[in-house]
């Protein structure tokens, strides 16, 4: 699947990246090269191969992640907001949406 510069611009938009034209120029050919490289996987016939789910070991895949439904302390509003760039009245404030 050939990938071109307008694809790259569209991908940047999907990824919420506002790339400068100079960056697009550099990234374009690099991403094309990497995508061409990964296409070597098409040499392999994987018709009946199950896709792996993570790096799980047989034990890890069986891990029982259930826990008791108990009340445990959490961060709390004050602490959760401590590192926010623009907290306001107990909330994360953002620029206007519409």
């Amino acid at each position, binding site marked *: 699947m050939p990938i071109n510069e307008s694809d790259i611009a569209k991908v940047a938009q999907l990824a919420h990246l506002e790339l400068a034209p100079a960056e697009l120029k550099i990234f374009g050919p690099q991403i094309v*090269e990497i995508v061409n490289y*990964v296409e070597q*996987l098409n040499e392999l016939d*994987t018709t009946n191969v199950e896709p792996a789910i*993570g790096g799980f070991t047989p034990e890890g895949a069986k*891990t029982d992640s259930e826990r008791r439904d108990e009340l445990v302390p959490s961060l709390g509003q004050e602490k959760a907001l401590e590192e926010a760039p623009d907290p306001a009245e107990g909330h994360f404030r953002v620029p206007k949406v519409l």
Partner: protein
Amino acid sequence: MSRQTVEAAVKAADKLNETLNAFLYIDREGAIKRAETSSSGPLTGIPVAIKDNLCVVGMQASCGSRILGSYHPPYNATVIQRLLDAGAIIIGKTNCDEFAMGSSNENSAFGPVKNPWDIKRVSGGSSGGSAAAVAAGIVPVALGSDTGGSVRQPASLCGVLGLKPTYGRNSRYGLVAFASSLDQVGIFAREVADVARVLGVIAGRDTHDATTANVPVPNYVESLSGDLKGLRLGFPSALFGKGVDDEVAKSVKDVVEFYRESGAEIVDVELPHAGYAIAVYYIIATAEASSNLARFDGVRYGFRAEDAPELRQMYRKTREEGFGPEVKRRIMLGTYVLSAGYYDAYYRKAQQVRTLIKQDFLNAFKQCDAIITPTSPTPAFPIGEKVDDPLAMYLNDVYTVTANLAGVPGLSVPCGLSSDRLPIGFQLLGPYWSEPTLLKLADGYLKARPFTELPPVRA
């Protein structure tokens, strides 16, 4: 005793940082104060350095990125809490490639780490600061994270031990996520016994990370013993071919001879799909990264771009100004391979080939107890040499990424110097949960052939 040790480590970190740039934060007073009151346990008073993508309360966690900058996490990572409970003293946070993406540390927003063996060369990456801090003798032990070789490769380039445990051995809670199905916290040290001791402290089930496996943690120190008789060591001769530096290949073949003479049985093994590992890795790792890094949007923590009066504009500007080029490149690649219409062609295909790579290992380990390879195809390369060629940089990880894809443990062990006096390392890969075997093999080798050379830049 412990106060003096920690004081010496802090002083060395301070003094050598001008040359090495290994630390992004040094906790001068705090570390010394804690040395006087630390809990008593198996690591009492031992100074350790922590990669700046692990959360430590009271210290920054920048991940080598401007988008987090001086972010201070509100909780300790599980592995950090366990170190503290065991009495270890954290002296600071180490430099790394931005969000652990890189093999040379040149992708850090705060400048590259210099290799203590030659400051014109890279430390390796992404956990370059931790590797350099241990190699230069600032601390005996450091933690890093390994997603595709980020502990083992810098360990090899800096001449120290570097362990990536089995996926699920250590908790990832409080490790800033890059590629969650590949990430694992790893250990740097100069002594095998120190790797064993620290692994025993940090390993094990954690209710905050559902991918930690419910597998008992053995006494790793007891598993060390010099007798290598009867162990079967797999030798994948195909991986010693093209692209490997001659000195590296020779050095690692000498190690194979050592094991043979020590009574181990050398078995030829094949990993038929290993050649596809880099391609698989750069699809899966970037796909997971594009999703994990979506959280950096300027809302809850870290940097927010100014002059963006509209929400989506704020997201884009924040990410454009906050992320460095390699992170953007990987987010773009990951977004592309996951985008509508391409998912099956790339992501699903890569996960299928990942299954084949896993099966390669399961088959190989029917014939042997561990596999030996070089850790890195070359010794440390000059700073700047590969920065403009991302694909060439990715190929550094050719020996290390398979372990992350399959979830198996890997250990890099120093085995000498090149003619330029640069460290060379070999890698041991084992079946799931075989850390005791890997440590025993490393210990047997280093007892017989101790790595006693010292770098020119050292404490």
